């Protein structure tokens, strides 16, 4: 299912033209944030323990390999530092007029009604439009308190901005994937379509809410000779 794509060592992957599994040096993700993608298109309840126990350990072992004792943390690129701080300051001092606590339920309602368990092209499209209409209120909230001590209204505003990013990429990805697979059930495309869709979606969202996609192949072969791979099969009850 979704998340920050990683390899089996917890290293974040950002596909390039030549390498669908290109590693972002020094960046790692584990647990519910990550997508090692051992669960296929639906992570069943409690299977998250796999990410905790197996990949948490694998990530720690890999980190111990890459980080040499006594080595210095590389200086952050000034441009990116500036961008992160600007975003923080913009949200901290935002006085757009909308209450976070009022905009968030509106976004939740759109996500709940259009991008829910059973999805359909026309309602997904409607949801995309309704989400786009929320862009202005989402970006114009008011943070009443600029203190840096346990400032809940600032945290809520930052969380709302992060949720909006997630909502937009989830929405566009769901609309683009014209098949049913795992947790993504389309009423207008009942079947799994391995010819066109046996691949991971990688999505980028820019500041103008444009979403672009790339695709990565799915690793279907176990790394051990002791077990057979599981080719995708129809789910029957």
């Amino acid at each position, binding site marked *: 299912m979704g998340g920050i794509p990683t390899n089996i060592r917890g290293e974040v992957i950002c596909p390039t033209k030549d390498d669908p599994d290109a590693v972002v040096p020094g960046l790692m993700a584990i647990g519910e944030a990550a997508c090692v993608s051992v669960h296929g298109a639906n992570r069943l309840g409690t299977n998250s323990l796999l990410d905790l126990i197996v990949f948490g350990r694998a990530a720690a072992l890999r980190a111990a390999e890459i980080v040499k004792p006594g080595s210095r943390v590389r200086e952050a690129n000034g441009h990116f530092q500036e961008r992160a701080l600007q975003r923080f300051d913009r949200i901290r001092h935002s006085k757009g007029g909308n*209450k*976070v*606590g*009022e905009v*968030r*339920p509106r976004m939740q309602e759109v996500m709940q009604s259009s991008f829910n368990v059973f999805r359909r092209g026309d309602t997904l499209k409607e949801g995309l439009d309704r989400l786009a209409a929320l862009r202005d209120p989402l970006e114009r909230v008011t943070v*009443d*308190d600029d*203190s840096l*001590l*346990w*400032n*809940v*209204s600032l945290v*809520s505003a930052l969380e709302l901005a992060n949720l909006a990013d997630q909502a937009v990429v989830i929405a566009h990805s769901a609309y683009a994937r014209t098949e049913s697979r795992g947790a993504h059930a389309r009423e207008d495309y009942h079947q799994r379509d391995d010819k066109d869709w046996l691949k991971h979606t990688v999505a980028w969202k820019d500041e103008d809410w444009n979403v672009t996609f790339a695709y990565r192949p799915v690793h279907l072969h176990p790394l051990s000779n002791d077990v057979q791979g599981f080719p995708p099969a129809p789910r029957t009850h």
Partner: protein
Amino acid sequence: MSEFTLPKNSQVGEGKHWALPQPGEHVKSFRIYRWDPAKNATPTLDTFDIDRDHCGPMVLDALIKINDQIDPTLSFRRSCREGVCGSCAMNIDGTNTLACLTPMDSLKKGTSRITPLPHLQVLKDLVPDLSGLYAQYELIEPWLQTD
């Protein structure tokens, strides 16, 4: 003759009353401990009236409603809202408990009092300093030990 003084911030005053804009049929009131280190003032108990017809059933729902609609500066910890993480531990009507697992129906009639967990330094409002707890937690090495 010996002279005793109370520790700093131990005297709690009466705070603001956030009344409902219109009177509701099912109203629950909470007196909630407020203290902001940035303001040079002693703690107060603010009163918040909650319209239960437009609120979830748990005390945490009421706190989130306060944050979303009444006073976004009220600070408290929360995370899973289902009794797993323990973040919303606080003292409700004299009992240390989790706000997410306490139904408002289970509270006494009238006004309920919410204060931070006792015997801990308060960082802000309902947020106590847990660094001592984490230090003790680390001391017992609470993870699976292998040989």
